[in-house]
C-alpha cells in the first residue's frame, strides 16, 4: 500500500504542474496593454507617459518570454546595453539614457569600471547620461555634471573615491546602521548610493514592523526609483501595507537593480519568465488585491472555499447515505413496483437541472437560520443522488448475478446477508471512484446553488467577481477548484486501492495510464 501511495502521489505532481500551465494559459485571455509603438519617439516627447505605459506592461511581465528565458536581463546586462547605445549614439540613445538614469546607482559598478576603455567622445556621452543619477544622489554640482568638458572627469574621480561604497558588505553595513537608528546622516549615506541600496532595503522590509522605519525606507526607495508612493499617516493605516506594496513592486522590478550570480542565472532561465513569475506568486497564495473591495484575494478565497467545500462535502455525504439504502432496496425488490417507481423517480431527478431544483427549494424553504445551510446542501444532494444511485444499483445487480452469490443463496444464507455482505461491499468500490469524479460536478453545482440561496461561498463571490471584472479572483478560484479536484481524485484512488488489492497490482505493474 505504501509503494502504491508513493507512486500515486508522485504521479500527481506533473498533473498539478499541467493544471498550473492551463490556468496560466487562461490568464492570457485577459486583454493585454498594447506594445508601445515607437518607444524612442515617446521618450523624447513625454518620458512620464512612456514610464506609465512601460510600467503597465511590466506589471503583467509582458517584456519577459513566456516559458523559457535564454538571456535573462539583470542590471548588468541592461547597463551594458544602455552604454553601448549611448556610446554609438544611434536611434535608441535617448531611450537608453532614460533607462540608464532609471537604473541609477545599481548600474554604476557595471558602467564606471569600464569607463576608461571608452573612446573620449563616448565617455562624455555616457557621463552626461549619468547626470540625473548624480543629481539624485546629491553628489557634485549641476554645472559639473552637465558640463561635457568636466562630466567624464567627475565620474572617474567619483569612482576612485567611492567605489568601495558600492560593494555588498558596505551596503549591508549602511542599511543595518540605518535600521538600528535613523538619522539624517545615515539617510544621506543611503541616498548617496541610490538604487544600489534597494536590494538590502527590500530585504529589510520583509520583516520590519516598526512604522517609522518602514516609512523612512519607503521614502528613500521612492526617492531613488522615482516611484510616487502615497505616504499614509503615521497614526493611521497598516505600515505592512506600504511594505507589502514595495515588496510587490520589487517582485516585478528586481532584475533592474540586481546582478544575477551564477546559480541565479541558471534558475533565472525559468524563473524570469511570465509563467515562472505567475507560478511563484500563485504557489505562495499571492493573488493580489481585489478591485471590488480592495482587500487581498487569498483570505477571501479561503473563507469562500470553506463554505463551498463544506456544502459540497455535506452533499456528497448525504447522497451516499441516501443512495446506498436506495440501491439496496432496488436490488432487493428487483423489478417489482418499488424498484420501478424508484427508477422512475431517480430518472426524473437525474434530468432535472440543478438551478431549477434550487429555485424551487428556495421558495419552499421555511425562514430560519438553520435552513440556510441545510436547503442548499439538499439541492446539491438531489443532483448527485440520482447519478450515484443509478450507478450503484447497476453495480449491485451485476454483482448479485454472479455465481458466488448464487452459491450463497443456495447454501441458505439469508437474503439480507447476501445483499449487505456481498452486494453492498462490491458495489461500494466503483462508487468510491465515482465520488472522486463527482467532485468537479458538485463544485459546479455548488456555484449555482450558492447563487440562488445567496450563500457567500466561492461560487457566489465568483459571480460577483464576474460583474466586477475581478480577473485575479477568477483565476485563483479556478486554480483552487482544479487542485482540490485532483486531490479528491487522489484520495478516491487511494481509497479504492485500499479496498481492492488488484488495483494496486495493476497500477504498480503498468506504472500508470490507468484510464
Amino acid at each position, binding site marked *: 500500500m505504501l509503494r502504491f501511495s508513493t507512486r500515486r502521489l508522485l504521479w500527481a505532481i*506533473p*498533473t498539478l504542474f*499541467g*493544471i498550473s500551465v*492551463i490556468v496560466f494559459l*487562461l*490568464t492570457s*485571455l*485577459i*486583454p493585454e496593454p498594447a506594445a508601445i509603438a515607437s518607444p524612442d519617439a515617446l521618450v523624447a516627447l513625454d518620458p512620464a507617459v512612456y514610464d506609465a505605459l512601460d510600467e503597465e506592461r511590466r506589471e503583467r511581465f509582458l517584456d519577459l518570454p513566456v516559458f523559457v528565458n535564454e538571456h535573462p536581463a539583470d542590471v548588468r546586462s541592461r547597463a551594458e546595453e544602455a552604454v553601448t547605445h549611448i556610446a554609438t549614439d544611434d536611434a535608441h540613445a535617448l531611450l537608453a539614457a532614460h533607462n540608464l538614469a532609471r537604473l541609477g546607482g545599481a548600474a554604476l559598478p557595471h558602467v564606471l569600471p569600464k569607463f576608461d576603455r571608452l573612446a573620449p567622445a563616448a565617455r562624455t556621452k555616457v557621463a552626461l547620461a549619468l547626470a540625473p543619477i548624480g543629481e539624485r544622489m546629491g553628489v557634485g554640482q549641476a554645472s559639473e555634471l552637465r558640463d561635457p568638458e568636466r562630466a567624464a572627469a567627475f565620474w572617474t574621480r567619483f569612482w576612485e573615491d567611492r567605489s568601495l561604497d558600492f560593494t555588498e558588505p558596505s551596503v549591508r553595513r549602511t542599511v543595518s546602521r540605518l535600521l538600528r537608528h535613523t538619522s539624517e546622516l545615515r539617510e544621506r549615506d543611503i541616498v548617496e548610493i541610490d538604487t544600489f541600496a534597494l536590494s538590502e532595503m527590500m530585504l529589510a522590509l520583509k520583516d520590519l514592523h516598526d512604522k517609522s522605519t518602514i516609512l523612512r525606507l519607503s521614502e528613500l526607495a521612492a526617492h531613488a526609483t522615482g516611484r510616487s508612493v502615497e505616504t499614509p499617516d503615521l497614526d493611521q493605516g497598516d505600515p505592512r501595507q506600504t511594505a507589502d506594496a514595495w515588496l510587490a513592486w520589487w517582485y516585478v522590478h528586481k532584475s533592474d537593480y540586481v546582478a544575477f550570480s551564477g546559480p541565479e542565472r541558471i534558475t533565472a532561465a525559468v524563473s524570469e519568465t511570465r509563467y515562472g513569475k505567475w507560478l511563484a506568486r500563485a504557489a505562495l497564495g499571492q493573488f493580489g488585491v481585489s478591485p471590488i473591495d480592495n482587500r487581498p484575494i487569498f483570505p477571501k478565497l479561503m473563507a469562500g472555499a470553506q463554505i463551498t467545500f463544506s456544502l459540497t462535502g455535506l452533499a456528497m455525504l448525504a447522497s451516499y447515505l441516501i443512495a446506498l439504502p436506495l440501491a439496496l432496496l432496488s436490488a432487493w425488490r428487483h*423489478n417489482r413496483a418499488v424498484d420501478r417507481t424508484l427508477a422512475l423517480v431517480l*430518472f*426524473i431527478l*437525474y*434530468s*432535472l*437541472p*440543478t*438551478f*431549477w431544483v434550487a*429555485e*424551487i427549494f428556495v*421558495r419552499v424553504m421555511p425562514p430560519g437560520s438553520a435552513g440556510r445551510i441545510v436547503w442548499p446542501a439538499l439541492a446539491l444532494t438531489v443532483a448527485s443522488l440520482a447519478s450515484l444511485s*443509478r*450507478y450503484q444499483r*447497476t453495480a449491485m445487480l451485476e454483482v448479485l448475478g454472479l455465481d458466488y452469490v448464487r452459491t450463497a443463496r443456495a447454501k441458505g444464507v439469508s437474503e439480507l446477508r447476501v445483499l449487505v455482505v456481498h452486494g453492498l461491499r462490491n458495489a461500494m468500490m466503483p462508487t468510491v471512484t465515482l465520488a472522486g*469524479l463527482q467532485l*468537479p*460536478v458538485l*463544485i*459546479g*453545482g455548488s*456555484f*449555482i446553488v450558492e*447563487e*440562488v440561496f445567496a450563500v457567500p461561498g466561492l461560487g457566489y463571490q*465568483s*459571480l460577483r*467577481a*464576474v460583474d466586477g471584472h475581478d*480577473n485575479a479572483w*477568477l*483565476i485563483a*478560484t*479556478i486554480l483552487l*477548484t*482544479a*487542485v482540490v*479536484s*485532483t486531490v479528491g*481524485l487522489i484520495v478516491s484512488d487511494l481509497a479504492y486501492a485500499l479496498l481492492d488489492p488488484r488495483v494496486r497490482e495493476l497500477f504498480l505493474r503498468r506504472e*500508470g*495510464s490507468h*484510464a
Partner: protein
Amino acid sequence: MDRLRQSRLAFAGAIVLAFFALLAVFADLVASEFPMLCRVSGTTYILPNVTHPQELANFVEARASGQMAPGDWAFGPLVPFGAAQESKGDALLPPFARRAHPLGTDGRGRDVLSRAIHGTRTSFGVALFAVVAFLAVGSVLGALGGFLGGVVDALVSRTIEILSSFPTLVLVLVVQALLPHPTRTTLFVAIALARWPEIARLVRAEVLVVVSNDYVTAARALGASPWRVLLRHIIPNARAPIVVAAMFGIAQVVLIEASLSFLRVGVPPGTASWGEMLSELRDYSGAWWLLVVPGLAVFAVVSSLNLVGEALRDTLDPRLRV
C-alpha cells in the same frame, strides 16, 4: 416486458426530441412578429417572417398596436410575437391573463411562448455545435492515444487527466468572464474544450480493447498499413460508445448552457434562452410562469435525450449499462 416498456419510452422520447428539433429549425416560422403572409401598400409579401424585410418594420409595429392601414392585411404565424419584441405596457402578465399571450410575458413584456420556442434554437444550436466539436477532438485524440501508444499515449492520458480536474461549469464561466467579448461561438468552443477529455477517455479505452483483439494483429501481420487498420477495423468497432456519448453529451451541454445562461454568463444578454428566462426569476420572484415554462422545456429535452441515449446504449453496447 421490461425491454418493451423501455423501447416504448425511448420512442416517446424520440418523438419529443423530434418535435423540439423541428421547433428549433422552424422557430421563425412558428413564432415571429413578422407575419407569414401579408399585403402592404399594394405589395404582397410571402413568408416575411423568414426573410425579415426591413421595409416591413413600420407595418409590424402598426399591426402590433392594431392600427393597420385600410387595404393592408396580414396572416400571422401561430405565435405572433418575436423573441425580442418588448412591450413595456404588457410586462409580467401571468398566463391566460390576455388571450394573445397564453403563457404570459416576462419582465420586459416579451411573450414567454415565443421566447421558449426561440430558446429551443439557442439550446440546440449551442449543444449541436459543442457536441460535434468535442466529439471530433475527443475521438481523434483518444483514438490516436490508444492506437499509437507510447509517448503519444502518455501525453494524451496526461492531458485528459489534467483537463478533467477542471469543473466544466467553472471553466466555461471563467473563460467567458475573462474574454473581453464573449459570444455564442466562444461559449460552445469553451464547452467543447471542457468536455472533450471525457470522450477521449472513452474512445481511448475502447480503442485499447479493440487493438488487443487478434484480428487486428492478424491484419497488421498481413501487411495492412496502420491507416487501413485504423479506418477499417478500429473505428467501426469503437463507434458504439461515441454514439452513446454523443446523445448524453447533448443532454449535458443543454444543461450546462441553461445553467450558465441562468447565471448570466452564458449566451449574450438578450438572446432567447431557457436559462436566461429563468434568470429573470431573480429579479421578479413572483413570476411562477417564468419558473415553470422554461424549466419544463429543459426537463423535457434533457429527459428525452437521456431516454433515447439509454435505449441506444442498451442496443449498441450492453457492457456500458449503468
